[in-house]
């Protein structure tokens, strides 16, 4: 099926090789609050789509529910804005049935690590070729400031007004703990060049690429990332040929750690150390099996199917 899909696309563009620009992917006007980190992520994604020249009709953005999950509406690709926490199963279904489509999944922190936690873990294990973005503002934005699993301990919210009770969950170490996870990265929306480079590496990786994007919420949690934004020395970049290298920010972010993304033990170490916020590719292993590849079947025409079904009936014939 992918055949006529691609052929048609060429005709649709009248054979023109005019490249897609960032504006080719522009959907409805984004309705996030002014100063919301999601705007920058949207821009980085448009940049990525244009850089990779992804065909809009062969690209699908799937999301859950939350401020961040409005994402697909603001793009001119196919989109599926589903239910809270469950963007990943939908993405898996799309990719299983139509492996030729490029599938992106956008989730909030509550979406991914709380209500959707089971799907998150299992999606990492299936390792279907998806680019997964978790927009982590460490709070429930859409429902107006409730504690999320990634909310720092002690943060006041509407559900935990005396400060959140538990230490925040670390989505990186959880992801790194999942057998068969193949790509785990972290970036921050206020470092656009790094964001873009990380998303690009994630897209280019074949398998489930999990990217946690630290994202500012100017309304409910302006303080959470404020000091890291102001003080680049709180950030350490993990750099490697097989991860991301962003020369233009190296002057600002002086702490750089050479980290081979194949080194899982080191990845876990950096994920857990809280002296600094580490940005970069923590782990990448392109050799992990991908579920949709493992499960790929040979397509059968209706006639072939019926011939084989007759054989099945023979087994049950009286």
């Amino acid at each position, binding site marked *: 099926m992918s055949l006529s899909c691609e052929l048609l696309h060429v005709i649709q563009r009248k054979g023109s090789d005019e490249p897609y620009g960032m504006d080719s992917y522009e959907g409805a006007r984004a309705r996030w609050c002014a100063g919301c980190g999601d705007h920058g992520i949207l821009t980085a994604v448009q940049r990525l789509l244009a850089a990779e020249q992804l065909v809009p009709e062969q690209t699908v953005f799937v999301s859950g529910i939350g401020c961040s999950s409005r994402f697909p509406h603001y793009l001119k690709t196919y989109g599926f804005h589903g239910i809270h926490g469950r963007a990943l199963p939908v993405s898996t279904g799309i990719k299983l049935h139509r492996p030729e489509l490029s599938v992106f999944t956008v989730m909030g922190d509550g979406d991914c690590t709380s209500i959707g936690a089971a799907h998150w873990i299992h999606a990492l294990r299936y390792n279907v070729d998806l680019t997964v973005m978790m927009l982590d503002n460490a709070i429930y934005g859409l429902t107006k400031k409730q504690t999320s699993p990634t909310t720092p301990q002690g943060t006041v919210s509407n559900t935990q007004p005396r400060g959140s009770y538990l230490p925040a969950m670390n989505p990186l170490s959880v992801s790194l703990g999942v057998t068969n996870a193949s790509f785990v990265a972290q970036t921050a929306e206020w470092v656009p060049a790094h964001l873009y480079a990380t998303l690009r590496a994630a897209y280019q990786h074949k398998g489930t690429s999990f990217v946690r994007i630290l994202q500012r919420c100017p309304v409910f949690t302006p303080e959470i990332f404020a000091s890291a934004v102001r003080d680049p020395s709180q950030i350490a970049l993990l750099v490697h040929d097989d991860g991301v290298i962003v020369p233009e920010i190296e002057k600002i972010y002086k702490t750089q750690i050479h980290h081979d993304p194949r080194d899982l033990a080191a990845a876990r170490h950096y994920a857990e150390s809280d002296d600094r916020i580490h940005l970069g590719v923590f782990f990448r292993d392109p050799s992990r099996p991908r579920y949709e590849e493992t499960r790929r079947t040979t397509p059968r025409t209706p006639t072939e199917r019926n011939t084989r079904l007759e054989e099945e009936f023979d087994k049950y*014939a009286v």
Partner: protein
Amino acid sequence: MTISAGTTSAVAPQTGAPPAHLRVREHTIEIVSDSGEGAQKCGQIFAAVSAKMGNGIWTVEIIPAEVQPPPRVPEGASGNRIRVGAGPVTNWGDQTDLVVAFNEQALLARHRVGALAPDAILLIEEMWATSQDPAIVAAWEAAMEELSTREYRIIPVPMQEQCLTLVENPRKGKNMFALGMLAYIYDRDMERIRDQIATAFRKKSEAVYDSNVSLVNLGYQWAQEHIGFRIDVPPAPIDTPLVVMNGNEAIGMGAIAAGFELCAMYPITPATSVSHYLSEVFERFGGVVHQAEDEIAAAGVAIGASYAGKVALTITSGPGLALKTEFLGLAIMTETPLVVVDVQRGGPSTGLPTKVEQSDLLAALFGQPGDAPHVIVAPATIEECFHVMITARRIAETFRAVVMVLTDANLATGVAPYPRPTLDSQWQAAPIDLAPVGDSDLPYAWEEETGLSRRIVPGQPGGMFTLTGLSHDERSKVAYSSGIHQHSSAMRSRKLAVLQSVLTPPVVYGDEEGGDLLVVGWGSTKGAIEEAVDRVRADGLKVSSLHLRFLSPLEPGIKAILQRFTKVVAVEINYSDDPDAPYITEENRRRGQMAMLLRSSTLVDVDSWTRVPGEPLRPGSIVTAIRERVLSGGAA
């Protein structure tokens, strides 16, 4: 109780008792043992051979309550129950006429649940009576005592002793010996039995086949020498090719015939065997069975696949259906076609995992919060389990609808023959249509009159829209305005009315003109209800029945049919209060689910007779209920 020729000695040919040739229209046979002794295999072969000879059959499995019960306990009874008829058999019937039991405890279990006819013939392994273990002997004697309260005719059989003459481990051979006895008693075609053994053990060696055949011969011979009667259920020649399978296999094959390519599921009894079957063969048909992390994810994967292409399938049972609820609402809201099979079991909660019930109807219909119109169909036979999948997929696709298929454990595990389908490639899903989308094409281009619209699939140039579970307009723009929500709700609902407009009214079984009582049923109870109706009509009662397949939308013309009868009663396998129970009044009585549905949609005073015994309804008990309803002045 008649104990033939004592409990321990070899049995001499009987005199006096039943005629040498008992000719009957039907007979129900059970083979019970501890699990692992092969009673099921014996039953399956017997049933298959009977079907091939031209008898109607309906087989149900007798499943032990535990996975690995200890030996010789009533809870461990395992085996098969086969109702053999001269004509087609549509249900499991009433009570068992003849049992072969490998120990007296398994037999006791069947006796205690009232499975056995008062005059049933019981062929029982006699070795336990003379066991070295006094506890076993005591148990045997207590059992004989308990069984003696009925008029059973008990025939002790030295199965162990006989099998030992041929094999070292009779535990593995008794089932074939039993098969041989049954072959003699029911005069089964030995050639066919050998063929069937060859098929059943095809993966094993020649030696296994030979040993099984000689055990069958031994059983046959023994019966010939020691049992003084034969039972003749005349077979009718078969004029159309038949296939024999259970309802879950039929659903699996139906899914293939309908061209499904993805079935997402999470294991749950009694639905799982569909996916077992599909997992075995689906890849050869270009299909994938995806075992998801839970039922929610299974629904999500199916919706994702459907959204991106061909209609996908998810299969579950009650508890799983509950989990899928939110996703089903999403599929309905985004008008993403989807087929959901719910193989019902006893509930609520974990309930009766392996047992039949029809109590998911209202949950299936109204389970999704918000207004969530969708289609529900209920196949009534194993054959319909196959064919319904084709219709369900087609309706889902053309109406952009969620179609639920309600079956139950009775259909799932019952085995019966049906005419071999003549496959048609038009049953299968067309390839995904990726033609470019026109400038005026919208993701929900509702036709005002019908609510129907054509869906757009990723890959179609020009169709880049974002579908959403939020209320939306034709362009899929999120819209909170009351006008838009009112309109889009109407469009989704209208589709059901439109579907109903092309349905034909259901056909009354019995008297179309009306009468004293109409029995209404749905799903797997059809065979039992119609058999009961036949029996009371033969006695002159003016009783008919109506069996519904479309439960949402309901088939048209039902109200008019109901009104032609003095009384209407819905017979179902779900719970309802007994009208005579303490505290129960006409006002507070909780009725069966179909009864509630019919009352609300027709305003006819539909009565309810339901039972939740964890087993299929017996025609005999429906007959009793019908007589009560017709004779009593109540409930009209």
